[in-house]
Every structure is written in C-alpha cells, then in structure tokens.
C-alpha cells in the first residue's frame, strides 16, 4: 500500500513545465482558488458545506432501514456481501459470495419497486406508480432481467440469445407468483378470473420471446449471408434498417480484389507465351481462380451463391474483365454483378541482356487492375 502511494506521488511530480502532471496541478489549483473566490463572493463556505451535509443526511435517512424487514436491509446486506466478495483470493469463493450479493440485491430491488411511499428529500415518491405504464406494472420485467443476468452469467456472448429468450417467461413467472400466494403465506389456486389474466400474461410473454428469437434468427442469416446487408431492404415487410444511407460494400468487392491478387500471382512476370496460353484456356483457369479465391475468403454459406467468371474483351491485347455475379436473393429478384478490368501488357524483361529482348519469348507480362466498378443489376450475358 505504501509502495503504491509512493509510486503515485512520484508519478504526480511534474518532470517539466509542458507535461500532463503540470497541467493537472494547475487545473486543481485554479479549481480550488476559483471555488474559494466564488464561495467567498457569492455565499460563505460554511453554508455550502452544510448543504452537502443536508444531502448526505437525506440519503442516509432514505437508506436507513425503518424496520428490520425492509428493502433497505436487503440492499445493505448485498452491498456488504459484495464488499466481502472482494476479499478472498480464490475465484470460486469470490464468485460464490458475489452470487450471494446478487441473491440479496434482486429481492431488495424487487421490494423497492413495490414501495408506494418512499421519502426522499422531504417528498413522497410512489415508485410503483412511476413504474406502471398504462396499467401494466413493469417491475417484474426489471427483476426478470436481473434474474436472467444472474442465471446466465456464464453463458458466452455468442450465445446471448439464451438471456433474451428466457427473459419474458421468467418475468411472467415473477409477475404471476403473487397470484399463487395467499395470506399466511400459503399456496393457493388462483380464481378463474385471475387464471384468465395469467393465460394472457404468459402467452403474450411467450410471443415476446418469439420476437427475440426472430431477431436472432435474422441475425444468424445475416452472418451466413453478409451480402444481404449490402442491399436495399426498404421493400421488406419484416425487417427494417436503421442508421440508413450508408450500405456495407458487397462481398463481391472483396472477392474481386482477392481474384486480382491471385491473377497477379499467376501471370505477373511470367513469360508472354505462357500468359497467352493461360488466357486461351480462360474458362478452366477462372474456375481454378474461383476455387482459390473462395478458399481464401472467410468460409460462409453465401460463398456458394457467388460465381466468378472472366472474359477477354475482343480486339484488345489483352484486357481481362473479371465478373463476380451474385445468384442469391436480391431486391430486384434477378441478382447483380460486379466487374473489375485488368490490363495485361507485354514488357521486355529488364533482367535479361539487351541482345535477347528482340526475341518474343523473353518478353514478360505486367498485370494492372482498375478498382471494382459499381454493381449492375441482372446477370451477365453468357457470351464470351
């Protein structure tokens, strides 16, 4: 502890005038002096100290348990056990005591939400009324959320849906419990009118769970088919896109960029005759490029719906146009395609002696590509 303080103190000594420590000390100094002048000029310091004292007194009054069985007691026990949970070194003990803290906190807060006459700052607050929206008391859903967080605290983030799907039914159970408890306390069977309400309560909460599940289902589809995000979703009767305007680039762009590097690896710097042979066999070569590209991209289900093709434009020497066409669901129903053109030019090999450059077989190819062009609707025509 002492070491830590010493280290802190040495850290806070400004090494030079233009350091953050100097700025910090100047700020603190200005704050203290400014505050002092302000308080002396406007009102005296003692009064302001008293006001702070008053606030603390009020908070203390609110948090002091009026009787042994009250929500304040539970909150204090929970704070106490949380502080205790910081002491042990072993993770298991710590986790256990922290869980105990939760177990006291949840009923404490649940109880607090039923408080109808809470005295804060000399005024009464009806917490229960504040949490009631159009006749529905929201308390059980807040408690339910906390119960879900506690129950599924070990669930990893990628299985987050468990929490959301269990939340409404657990809340419904919490909301329904008072109907099953008679004074005593004793178990009781709710009367038919209450049972009717319970049926509607449970069914509507199950429906809420279904909506959460629908959300997670659409998300899993978006993970499998990321290119869906790149498209116009305004026609959909199911989903809506927020933060509109900017659309993600289609994965076709990444695919064509990857294809560019594959083609460069295969052709750039090769002998011109080999390149011409490659271009002559374009179709099987592009299929090979497609498999390589798909192997390098992240493997998702949508890869099967992309098709890579290439053709050499007629009367050029040589312009290779690569086409990535999307054959999956799209806003217009027919898909779309992206293109990228590459110029393959013949240059003399600078590494060889000049005497040999006249010979065509020593000339090598250079590949340079344009950026991917904007998508075109429909499918590319199948002509070569």
């Amino acid at each position, binding site marked *: 502890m002492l070491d830590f303080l010493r280290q802190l103190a040495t850290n806070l000594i400004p090494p030079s005038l233009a350091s953050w420590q100097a700025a910090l000390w100047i700020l603190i100094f200005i704050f203290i002096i400014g505050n002092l002048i302000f308080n002396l000029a406007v009102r005296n310091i003692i009064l302001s100290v008293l006001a702070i004292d008053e606030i603390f007194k009020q908070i203390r009054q609110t948090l002091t348990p009026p009787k042994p069985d009250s929500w304040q007691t539970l909150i204090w026990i929970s704070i106490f056990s949380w502080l205790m949970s910081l002491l042990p070194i072993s993770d298991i003990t710590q986790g256990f005591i922290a869980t105990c803290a939760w177990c006291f906190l949840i009923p404490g807060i649940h109880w607090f939400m039923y408080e109808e006459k809470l005295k804060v700052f000399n005024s009464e607050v009806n917490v229960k009324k504040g949490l009631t929206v159009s006749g529905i008391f929201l308390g059980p859903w807040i408690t339910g959320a906390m119960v879900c967080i506690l129950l599924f605290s070990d669930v990893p983030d990628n299985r987050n849906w468990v929490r959301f799907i269990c939340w409404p039914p657990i809340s419904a159970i919490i909301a329904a419990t008072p109907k099953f408890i008679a004074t005593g306390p004793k178990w009781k069977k709710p009367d038919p009118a209450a049972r009717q309400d319970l049926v509607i309560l449970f069914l509507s909460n199950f429906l809420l769970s279904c909506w959460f599940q629908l959300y997670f289902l659409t*998300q899993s589809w978006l993970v499998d088919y990321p290119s869906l995000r790149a498209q116009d979703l305004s026609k959909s009767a*199911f*989903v*809506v896109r*927020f933060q509109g305007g900017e659309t993600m680039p289609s994965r076709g762009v990444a695919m064509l960029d990857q294809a560019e590097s594959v083609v460069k690896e295969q052709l750039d710097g090769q002998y011109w005759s080999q390149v011409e042979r490659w271009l002559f066999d374009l179709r099987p070569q592009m299929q090979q490029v497609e498999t390589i590209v798909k192997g390098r991209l992240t493997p998702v289900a949508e890869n099967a719906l992309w098709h890579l093709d290439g053709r050499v434009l007629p009367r050029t020497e040589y312009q290779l146009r690569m086409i990535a066409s999307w054959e999956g*669901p799209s806003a217009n129903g027919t898909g779309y395609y992206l293109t990228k053109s590459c110029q393959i030019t013949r240059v003399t090999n600078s590494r060889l002696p000049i005497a040999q450059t006249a010979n065509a077989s020593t000339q090598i190819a250079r590949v340079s590509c344009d950026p991917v062009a904007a998508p075109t609707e429909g499918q590319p025509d199948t002509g070569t």
Partner: protein
Amino acid sequence: MFSEVLPLRAILFQVLFLLIAIAIEAFVFHRRLNPDYKTSMQYAASINLFSTFVGWLIFFNSQPFLPPEWRIQLISFIFFERFYSDPLFVSVSPVLISFALAMFFGTFLLKLKGLDFLDYLLEKAPPKKEEVVEPRPRYRSRENQLLRFRSNSRVYTVLVANACSFSAILLLLFFRLVEQTYFPK
C-alpha cells in the same frame, strides 16, 4: 450491441394483425355465443395469442430442417419480400397456396382446442349444445335444417371467426400489395 437490421416491421405487422383478429373474433363470439363483451375479448385474445405462439414454434423448429433452396427462398422472402429467380416462382406458388390453406385450418383447429382448454382451465362447462326441439317431420324444411346446423354453434363460430379475421388480414395485405405496386414511393 444490436445490429442495424431489426425485424421491427414484422413485429408491428404482427401486433396490428393480432389486434384486428382479436377485435373481429371477439365480436363474432359476442354475437354468436353470447358471453359478455369482456369475456369474449379475453377468449379471443387467449386463443389468438396461443395460435400465434404455436405457429412461431412450428416455424422456428422446422426452419433448420428446410432444404437449402427453400431456406434461401425464405430468406429472400423475409428480406426482400419476393422469391428469387422468377422461373422458380412457378413451383413456389402451389407450395405457398398449400401453406396458406394449412395455416388456415391449423389455426382453426388450434383455436378450437385452445377454447376447450381454456374452458377446462377456467372450470367453465362448455356451453351445452342447444337442444333443438325436434319439430314435427312435416314442418322440417330446408331452412330449419340449416338453422339446426348453425346452432351446433361452437365449431361453426370458431370457423366463422377465423374466416373473418383471415379475410380482414388478407384484405390489408392486398391493400399493401396495391400500394406497393401502383403507388411506389
């Protein structure tokens, strides 16, 4: 934490359709089975929520077992409200029609069973089938038979209520289609 693509439209449409269906069915129950308005409203709400919930359950549980082509069609339908690659639509539409029919009769059966279950849960005896006083054979006309068939009321009422709510929802969907086709934004 939440992504920018949310199924909010589906939820809003579902709420709207549920409200319409509950209102219409409550009205039909009120007219034909004569409970008070509140009870018929609660009944309609319960059975509609129940059939919707079971429908979602069937959807979520059957979804992983769909063949991949169907799955893509489903995704296309949900994200773009159309089936992709139009030639396939010819083979999709009979499937769609049989699905719609299955949905109608499925909800009808679910609602009927749900109503029975609700009666059991609330400890209400199901309304006794009205004893039709057998008229003398010579007065038994066609109309009378029809009347007797109608008064075997529970099943018939649920059928009528279901048909009414489905028609109203179809009408709304039709309006939406017209609006999207002829008055695009």
